């Protein structure tokens, strides 16, 4: 059963690569615009061989982790406050929505001014790009809690922190998971985007190098790496978390 799914996936990706190769052989587009998978693979092997790829991956993931922890911690707290305290929602809430609509790239100049060309600057861009997604999903999750749950819990004496940890968070968890997922996606994008613009180590830097040199195959190679890491993190961490929660709620 599981093996079957795996085989299907593999087959799917093989088909994609084959179609891609055929396209690039057909020479509809010139090679410097549309490189073949072979060239992309060559680029990958090359940067893996000289270690720069792994160093880049490590740097980016480290920054991601720090940024993400800040974003999830802050976002959950802010989201719960917004959902439960009307005045917070009315004031900070509207600000959050505004801040959420500012793209990470727009924060880069300010981040450089405020933090300099440091890891802190990149982490700032990452965290600020992700925190509001977590906030808004947590907020939505808490707002969508079946009111009977909260009533029953309060009735049985839950209040304050207890209410939050024993009821609000678990009850909002299906939404929050999707908030975390999105938070992580925002954060991952934020890291890469910030690195690309700061041009300061990491995968985003490698992407920028490829771009500066008009090396489309390197650009695509690094995009593939970014995707693969995305899929792996999602599959290893979030998918499991989600499956567990979904089956707990009888939704499977």
């Amino acid at each position, binding site marked *: 059963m599981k093996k079957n799914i795996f085989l299907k996936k593999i087959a799917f990706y093989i088909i994609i690569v084959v179609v891609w190769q055929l396209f690039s052989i057909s020479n509809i587009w010139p090679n410097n615009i549309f490189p073949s998978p072979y060239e992309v693979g060559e680029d990958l092997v090359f940067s893996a061989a000289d270690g720069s790829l792994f160093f880049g991956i490590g740097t980016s993931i480290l920054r991601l982790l720090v940024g993400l922890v800040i974003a999830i911690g802050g976002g959950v707290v802010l989201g719960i406050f917004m959902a439960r305290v009307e005045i917070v929602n009315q004031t900070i809430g509207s600000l959050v929505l505004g801040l959420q609509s500012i793209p990470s790239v727009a924060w880069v100049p300010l981040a450089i001014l405020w933090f300099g060309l440091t890891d802190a600057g990149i982490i700032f861009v990452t965290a600020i790009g992700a925190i509001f997604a977590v906030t808004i999903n947590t907020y939505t999750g808490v707002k969508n809690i079946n009111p009977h749950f909260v009533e029953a819990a309060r009735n049985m004496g839950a209040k304050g922190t207890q209410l939050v940890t024993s009821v609000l968070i678990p009850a909002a968890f299906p939404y929050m998971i999707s908030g975390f997922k999105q938070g992580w996606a925002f954060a991952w994008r934020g890291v890469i985007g910030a690195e690309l613009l700061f041009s300061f180590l990491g995968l985003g830097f490698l992407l920028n190098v490829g771009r500066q040199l008009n090396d489309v195959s390197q650009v695509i190679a690094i995009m593939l790496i970014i995707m693969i890491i995305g899929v792996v993190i999602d599959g290893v961490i979030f998918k499991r978390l989600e499956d567990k929660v979904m089956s707990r709620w*009888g939704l499977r």
Partner: protein
Amino acid sequence: MTKLEAKDIVKYFKHDSHKLKALGGVNLKVEDGEFVCLVGPSGCGKSTFLRIVAGLEIPDEGQILFDGKPVTTTGPERIMVFQEGALFPWLKVQDNVEFGLKMAGIPKEERAQISKRYLDMMQLTKFADSYTYQLSTGMKQRVAIARALVMDPDVLLMDEPFAALDAQTRDLLLVEMQLIWEKTKKTILFVTHNVAEAAVLGTHVAVFSNRPSKIKKLMPVNYKRPRLAEDESLLPFQQEILSELRPEVKKS
């Protein structure tokens, strides 16, 4: 001593096309240790009244006095069994039952002892480790009852707790309820649509009129206990309740 007093409770609800006066001035006095069964036509406002007593809903007019003090919020001295269960899907059956105890900070072993007693009583021991989506409707309702009894509150507010139970299980619980009540002398408000149930359990039966509802009649029940559902001697009293109810249902 008067435990609970409802004074002129009025409650409106907004519907798209009109405003609905659900409760039209409910007055009720419940002495300490009384077991009052509430009966009335479907949709007359029994659940709403119970929610107001629990402090989960605020009346538009009038107030509830508990031990002479106005009720403004919910509290573990007035525990409600929700008509639709409101079990927590993220907790196992046993953890659901222990929820209130955990909130009160009672240690794990003690909680397990207490919950075991009530799980046994509700014949749920085998399902202590199941999640709620794995239970049948009747089983869920039994969990909800256990969860409330465990709290050992002054006032127990039960909203059709036996509605989804098979006749046999209910007969057992009817006996059990009377024992619990006699032993603990709790004050109980018990909504039911089953007049036999009302006659077996209550020290009083309160009959609601149709919307906007008031308490049309408060009837004391003067039969010796323990009473059984099949007691033929209760039949005339059941007929009496029905004759109060019949015109109300016709009206609606």
